[in-house]
C-alpha cells in the first residue's frame, strides 16, 4: 500500500550533495513530493527533509539507498516516529470589498499574518501542518486567490518522554 513518508536526512554540507540525493530519486524512479534543505547548528552538516510516497518495500529501498550514499550521515524515516512537521505558505488574495474583513478574520483564526497589503490585495503568511494549510486554502478559494507558494515540509521528531 502506498503511504506518505517524511524522511529526515543528515548530510555532509558539501557541494553536489543535493544532486546526489535528488539524482538517486530520479535515477531509481522514486518520487519527491517536497524537499527542503538547511544547515544545522554544525555548519558542516545539513539536514534535508524529503516527503515521498511508496509501499513498504519501496520506502525500505529509499532509506537503504540514501544510507548508501557516501555523504549521508543519518537517515530517519519519521513515519512511525511521533514528530512535528511544518510548512509555510504565502498566499496573495484579492478579495472583494465586502470579503476583506472575512479574510482578516480567517487569517487571525489560523494564526496567520498579513505580510503585505496593497489597495487590491493581501499577502498572508501561514505556517502549520499540511491539514491546516489545506483547510486555510480551501477557505481562501472564494476570496480570489491570485498566487500561492508553499515551502517544502520540515519535520522534527518529538522528544521521548
Amino acid at each position, binding site marked *: 500500500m502506498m503511504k506518505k513518508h517524511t524522511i529526515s536526512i543528515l548530510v555532509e554540507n558539501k557541494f553536489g550533495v543535493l544532486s*546526489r540525493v535528488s*539524482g538517486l530519486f530520479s535515477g531509481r524512479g522514486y518520487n519527491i513530493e517536497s524537499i527542503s534543505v538547511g544547515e544545522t547548528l554544525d555548519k558542516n552538516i545539513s539536514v534535508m527533509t524529503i516527503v515521498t510516497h511508496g509501499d513498504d518495500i519501496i520506502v*525500505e*529501498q529509499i532509506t537503504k539507498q540514501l544510507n548508501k550514499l*557516501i555523504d549521508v*550521515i543519518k537517515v530517519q524515516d519519521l513515519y512511525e516516529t511521533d514528530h512535528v512537521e511544518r510548512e509555510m505558505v504565502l498566499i496573495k488574495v484579492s478579495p472583494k470589498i465586502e470579503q476583506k474583513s472575512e479574510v482578516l478574520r480567517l487569517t487571525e483564526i489560523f494564526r496567520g499574518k498579513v505580510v503585505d497589503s496593497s489597495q487590491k490585495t493581501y499577502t498572508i503568511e501561514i505556517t502549520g501542518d499540511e491539514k491546516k494549510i489545506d483547510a486555510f486554502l480551501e477557505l481562501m478559494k472564494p476570496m480570489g486567490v491570485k498566487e500561492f507558494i508553499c515551502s517544502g515540509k520540515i519535520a522534527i521528531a518529538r522528544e521521548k518522554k
Partner: protein
Amino acid sequence: MKISGSEIVLECLKKEGVKHIFGYPGGVVLHLFDHIYKDKDIQLILTRHEQGATHMADAYSRSTGEVGVALVTSGPGATNTVTGLATAAMDSIPMVVFSGQVPTMLIGNDAFQEADIVGITRPCTKYNYLVKDVQELAYTIKEAFHIARSGRPGPVLIDLPRDITAAMTEFVWPAEINLRSYNPTFEGNRWMIEKAAQMIIKAKRPVIIAGGGIISSGASDELRELAELSGVPVTTTLMGIGGFPSTHYLNLGMPGMHGTYYANMAIQSADLLVAVGMRFDDRVTGKVDAFAPNAEIIHIDIDPTSIRKNVDVDVPIVGDCKRVITVLNSVIRGEVSNQWEEIRRAWMRQIDEWKRLRPLSYNYSPDVIKPQYVVEKLYEITAGEAIITTEVGQNQMWAAQFFKYDKPRTFLSSGGLGTMGYGFPAAIGAQVANPDKLVIDIAGDGSIQMNIQELATAVIYKLPVKVAILNNRYLGMVRQWQELFYGERYSHSNLDVVPDFVKVAEAYGAVGLRAEKPSEVEPVIREALKVNRPVFMDFVVDWKEKVYPMVPAGAPIDQMLFDKEAEKDDKKLKLVK
C-alpha cells in the same frame, strides 16, 4: 618542501602501490604527463581510446584484486570513460579514474574541452570528486582508493583542474581516513548466522547461489568448505564464475536465462536458497514471482540495498561474504552429524538425474565450425590454465558454458552493464597485470570491432593476448532473439561486411590466423599459443547457431527452450534413452 599537484598524484599512487596507469594525454593533463615522463616507478600504458583505458584498468583489477587506475584528459577524454565507469559500477569493480579538467577559474564557462564530468558520472561511480584546492589533493586520493576498494567496491572518479596539477604545496600523506558517513558492515549478525546454519542443516533440497561477491571478498575457499561441509550444491552466476570450481562435483554451472537445465531445476525445486554475494539480477531470476517458489531464502551481501530489492528473503545477513561464511562454517562444523550423506542423498540423486537428462550440449558438425566447439577446444588445449575475457552476447554465454573455471579471477566479463567491446581491452589489462599468464578474449565479430583499435596497444607493449573471434557475420544474440521472438525479421543484425580479421591483425603488426573447417580449429589454436605475440584467431562459425538452454525474457526459469536438433543427435542423451 613544496611539490606540485602532479607530483602529489604520483606520490599518492606509489603509496597506494600502483605500478601501472592506463591513459591517454590531452591539453589539461600535460603537466601530469610531464611528471609521468620523468617517473621511473610508474608505467603508463598508452591506449588508443579512453574507453579502452577504463576497461583495461577494470580488468587489471578483476584479475588481481588491486585497484585499477586510468588517467584521461578533460571533455571528450573524460566522457569516453563513462562506459568503462558504468561497467565497473554495475559489477562492483574497484577502480580510480583521474580526469583532467579545465582550470578552476574557467569551470562553468563552456571552455574548450570542458565537460561537467562529475555531474555526468555521478550515477555511474561509487563516488566522485572535483578537486578545488591542491591542499586537499592527497587526502582526496587516499579517500578515493579507500572508498573504491572497501565495502561493496566500485569505481571512483577524481576530476583534476589544470591549475591544481601545477599548484605547489607540502605533500602530507594522511595517516588514516575517517569518514563518519561511510562505515560498511563487515561482520554479519551472529544470531542471523546461527539461524542460517540451522536452516542449512535441516534443509532437504538446498542450493547455494554464489555471485561476484565471492570473488571480490576472496571467499572461494570458504565457499568450498561450506558446500563440502554441508553437502550443498552450488550454482555460480555469471559474475560468480570461478568462485567455485567448475569441475567440482557439487557445481551446477550457471543459473538463469542461459543457465544449465539442472541449475534452474534445482533452484525451482529447492526448499532453501543460500544466496551469497549476488543480487538477484533479472537475468538470474527470470519471472521474479515464480522464482524459487518453494524455497526459504538466506541472503548474504555486503550491500544492504541488495537485500529485499528484487526478491523477498527470510534471513538477511549484511556483511562481507568471507567473514560471514567463515562464521557460518564454524557453526555448521559443530553440528555435523553422520547422517549428512543420507539426508542429501535423494536430492543429489535428483540433481544427477537432471544432469543426465539435459547436459549442456550442441550439435557437432564435421563440415562447419560450431562456436561451442571452439570454446571446448580452447579449454582442452589450455587445460583451463588461462584467464578468459569475453565480449557480450553469444560469445559470452558460450565462454561461460563451455570453458571451465576452477580458480577465481580467471573469468572476466561485463555482467551487469553488458558492454560490447569490453573483452579485448580487458584482455590487455589482465595481461599487463599477469605477464606470465595466458590471456584469451573470447569475442564475436561485432564486439571485437567496438575496441579493435587497442590492437595497437597490445602490439606496442608486446602483450601476447589471444583473441578467438567466433565470427558468424551477425550480431548473434540479437539475431537469435529476432529468430525466436520477432518472426525471423533480422532487422539490422546482419553485419554484412565484416573485415578480414587476419589482414587487420597483420596491418597492426599482430598475427592473424583463420579456421574455416572444424579440422582447422585445433591447429589454429596451437599455432596461436605458440607465438609470443598478440594473435587474432578468426573462426568462421555456423551463423545459425544459438545459445541454449534459453529462458525467454519474463518467463520462469524452469521454462527453458532447448536445441531440438542437438538433443536428437547427442550421444550422451542417447545413452540415457
